[in-house]
């Protein structure tokens, strides 16, 4: 069954968001941390990056993924604490537990304090959705000491924007039919799915509000957003049919596989194959408007041994170059044997929507702009002329030696 039935149904989606989740958890465990700005980052590492930060640190200019050394310069009075992912996961499980009595459709973004709850059709059982949202918030506050922002909206996209609007605390109810009016006055960076490159292009057009983009026709949008124009067209109008996934479903994961025609231990060949897999998965991510926060490499050796290694990214990415950098690190961890390799699998999970992109010109702007621009251009060419029309040189080695190889991409969603 497709998703067309969703277009005819009035949905009620709750989005719950504990702002600065890691910070909030740490502050519950140690109330003394509430007195000062807080940065969560691994200590001791020379190139440590910010994992999370408190609102005060954010206001001072600290951002996720920023080098800790730089972050300290922005907010020198901040206390720095190492991340404790196990604590955040435990808190997330309890958070999830409070939503499950109301719906089987609860979608969690791993460990980051975000939950979508689909309450469509539950009114007769539990009452109005805002009341349910308030009760969940009350229970979470009582049980965990965390105070989630909540919103109720007809779809995930609008619900997500609504919690962004009131961050760091508050609530927002958007009625069905009000989606467009709600979005119109808002800044474009609040819309999930718009990438850094898109925002830069819009800035060139002196466009900063969603309503300004909503005035463009689909044809006009195509000149700026290419094959993603329809997605943008719907997003600025608050149209989103994406379902809330069941809590019992496996987490979203995108995978791509490559089987070598001849078993090999040639690192150049293996890296080339890996790059092609990254391109496939990266394109799917960008089509879905998501980013991956973890990338894994599965190696099946000729002797049947399987080695798996993963590499995480704090902020997540859908950029091929950044994905490849992560994948190559995971490959380096995994490629420790001298036995030849038969099969290579790439898996991206911890999929999430990219954060609101407020810091347009902060970090290595030229470099980011160039790599995002190149990725977008490649996507457009492939969309128009076919997936194998244009390839990066580093992937060509694999295509020559792997002509007869079995390649597939599989989306665990479908």
């Amino acid at each position: 069954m497709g998703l067309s039935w969703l277009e005819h149904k009035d949905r009620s989606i709750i989005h719950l968001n504990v702002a600065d989740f890691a910070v909030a958890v740490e502050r519950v465990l140690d109330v003394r941390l509430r007195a000062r700005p807080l940065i969560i980052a691994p200590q001791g590492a020379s190139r440590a990056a910010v994992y999370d930060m408190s609102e005060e640190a954010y206001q001072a200019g600290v951002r996720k993924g920023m080098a800790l050394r730089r972050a300290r310069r922005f907010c020198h009075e901040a206390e720095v604490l190492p991340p404790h992912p196990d604590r955040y996961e435990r808190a997330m499980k309890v958070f999830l537990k409070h939503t499950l009595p109301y719906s089987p459709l609860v979608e969690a973004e791993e460990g980051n304090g975000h939950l979508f709850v689909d309450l469509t059709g539950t009114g007769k059982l539990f009452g109005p959705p805002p009341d349910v949202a308030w009760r969940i918030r009350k229970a979470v506050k009582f049980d965990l000491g965390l105070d989630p922002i909540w919103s109720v909206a007809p779809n995930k996209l609008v619900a997500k924007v609504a919690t962004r609007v009131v961050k760091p605390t508050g609530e927002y109810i958007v009625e069905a039919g009000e989606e467009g009016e709600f979005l119109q006055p808002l800044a474009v960076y609040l819309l999930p799915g718009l990438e850094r490159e898109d925002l830069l292009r819009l800035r060139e057009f002196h466009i900063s509000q969603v309503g300004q983009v909503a005035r463009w026709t689909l044809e006009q949008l195509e000149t700026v957003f290419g094959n993603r124009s329809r997605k943008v067209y719907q997003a600025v109008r608050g149209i989103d049919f994406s379902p809330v996934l069941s809590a019992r479903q496996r987490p979203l994961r995108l995978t791509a596989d490559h089987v070598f025609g001849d078993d090999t231990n040639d690192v150049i060949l293996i890296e080339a194959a890996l790059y092609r897999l990254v391109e496939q998965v990266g394109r799917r991510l960008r089509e879905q408007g998501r980013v991956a926060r973890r990338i894994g490499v599965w190696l099946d050796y000729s002797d049947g041994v399987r080695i798996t290694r993963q590499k995480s990214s704090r902020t997540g990415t859908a950029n091929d170059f950044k994905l490849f950098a992560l994948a190559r690190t995971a490959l380096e961890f995994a490629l420790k044997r001298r036995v030849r390799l038969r099969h290579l699998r790439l898996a991206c999970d911890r999929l999430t929507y990219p954060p609101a992109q407020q810091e347009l010109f902060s970090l290595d702007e030229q470099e980011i702009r160039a790599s995002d621009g190149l990725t977008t251009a490649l996507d457009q060419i492939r969309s128009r002329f076919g997936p194998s029309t244009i390839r990066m040189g580093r992937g060509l080695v694999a295509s020559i030696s792997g002509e007869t190889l079995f390649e597939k991409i599989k989306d665990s969603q479908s």
Partner: protein
Amino acid sequence: MEGEGRSESAGSCRLWVGTCGYSYTEWVEAGFYPPGTKSGQMLSLYVQKFPITELNYTWYQMPRAEAIERQRGQAPPQFLFAAKLTRSLTHEIEPDLWRDQAATFRDGIAPLVQARQLAAVLVQLPPGFDRSLKNRSYLAALLDELEGLPLAVEFRHGSWATDRVFAELERRGATLVSVDEPNLPGLFPALDVVTNPDLFYVRFHGRNAAGWGKGKKQLQFNYDYTEDELREWVEEKIMKMAGEAREGVTVFNNHVRAQAPRNAFVLARLLLEYGLILVRA
């Protein structure tokens, strides 16, 4: 509403009958709204049946002027809204923030005030809000902060049912909300006291004693008033209150299975039978 009548004993009091909230998807299934009605279309259908509604969502979320203005635009200019005071001013009071919250609330409902479509600000206090010194002081400060708005105060703790409280409300020109709810110990009783000659206000919560206070609205507000029960209210209380006030609001909160609008229609018919002036939709 069907029409207008007149009663000498109840003077010239004008009465509005409606429901607490209008946006319930189960009212589609119950037949109040036509099949396929989406929540965004409900207000424009509701205003064809009733002349007033309570905005319940303003309890959950601080009202925002632009959203209120959009809602107002879906109703005719004579339609009235009562706005429930936000929970951060009644149930989850933060000592350092509540005054700012009161100012924000005032800003949020400004479009209704300017358009003269605000029937009342409903100050519903929680069941545990008893008549302690601390609570008395807070309530006095809150009413001061909201001065100038038409205020209707609903107590849910029985300790507030004293003449001194009524006299203080009268001095402030605030309305004491009369409630119909289960006859359980500790709850505020059903009274016919009028503290504001401009407005009396009655809320029918239903009499589901078994479901009361269980934290489940679908149980608590699942009640269908009989015609006799409503007739008794008209004869024993509403007629008297209508004789003491210029205007009156009666709203039904038993929203489960659209019992609220059904009961509201019955009450409207009874009010007409008794010769009271009923404001049309």
